């Protein structure tokens, strides 16, 4: 009986002022944390496989690049459309650097990049191009299939929202 009462009180608490204040505080903290600090997201698509798989759940750590800029090899969350659609990509070149794909190998400033995260061979070719200022060059880890079918390229640093938590 006592246990039943406790369970009932847990699920249907009496609406006392103290309870309402507590509930309000929890709601506010949850809004700040999950709305602005650790934004939850679900991965749709295969562009970052095998590191990040389709359907996986993660959080975007929004303060990651608050005091620093993304580095080469970092995985970043980029705002793509509005507030709801974002992209998960890997940074391969920074501002001022030259990027080129030659027979399925990535070159930055004419030096071949070591990419241990690539598990499937690809045959992309892209003429050299320079990354503009305040921009980064991002590509997905899964580069199978024709180059035309992939979303990649340079984007403004302003669009970088943060990095995945894990």
């Amino acid at each position, binding site marked *: 009986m006592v246990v039943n009462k406790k369970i009932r009180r847990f699920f249907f608490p009496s609406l006392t002022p103290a309870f309402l204040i507590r509930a309000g505080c929890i709601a506010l903290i949850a809004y700040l944390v999950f709305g602005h600090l650790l934004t939850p997201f679900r991965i749709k698509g295969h562009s970052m496989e095998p590191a990040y798989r389709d359907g996986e759940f993660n959080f975007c750590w929004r303060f990651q690049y608050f005091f620093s800029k993304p580095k080469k090899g970092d995985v970043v969350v980029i705002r*793509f*459309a509005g507030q709801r*659609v974002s992209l998960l990509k890997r940074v391969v070149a920074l501002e001022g650097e030259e990027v080129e794909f030659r027979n399925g190998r990535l070159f930055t400033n004419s030096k071949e990049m070591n990419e241990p995260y690539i598990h499937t061979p690809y045959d992309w070719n892209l003429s050299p191009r320079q990354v503009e200022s305040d921009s980064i060059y991002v590509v997905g880890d899964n580069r199978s299939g024709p180059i035309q079918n992939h979303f990649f390229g340079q984007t403004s640093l302003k*669009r970088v929202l943060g990095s995945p938590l894990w």
Partner: protein
Amino acid sequence: MVIPVGDYRKALNPAEIASKRKPAAAAGPGSAPEGLWPGGSSGIISNGVKLKYLLIALIIIGLGIGTSLTLFQSEEKRVKKHFRLLSEGVSKEPGENIFTMDQKIKKIGSLFDETCEMNVPAHSLSGMLTRDEITGYAARGRLHFSQLHLKFYDFKITLPQEGIANVHLTARVTGKTRAGEAVNEAHELDCLLKKAEKKWLFSHIKVVEVLKK
């Protein structure tokens, strides 16, 4: 004038108007109790009547606000409505008949200016297009789909001068091609609308390029 301490009520109420505290004392036998309506309890208006009139007043105020919001729409709302009309025109349900299709295509055409600048590189659509060209493109595009939905959200509307609206928003296209392939695309758009004869018309639509190869 000196008011005796023990008789202050009489001094403040020299005509002996009925006191609220003692209604029975003021009203004679058989007469209506105090207040404006017979049958009232305490107070000027009885509680039941008070609540009834309060509810009526609230309903009238609500109707008034609703009517004024409907009749006097802000320009932002009119611009948003224009996008809703475009969304309705583009969207397609499975088994759509020719009559509905024709109506929708005409509707799409009526939403655009005589010429509209389009920059949609993903669909190889760019340059100045006439209303007829846009209508033809929309008709051909819709034919590829068995089901199509276009939704707009995240509106940022600015009205830099009268008759011009800049809109930054997100467009999401979902549906199924005739081959059975699922489509789910989202793009950020920059649109310019111009007002002509009290009607907003699309004058420029540009897809924001987020990733530049």
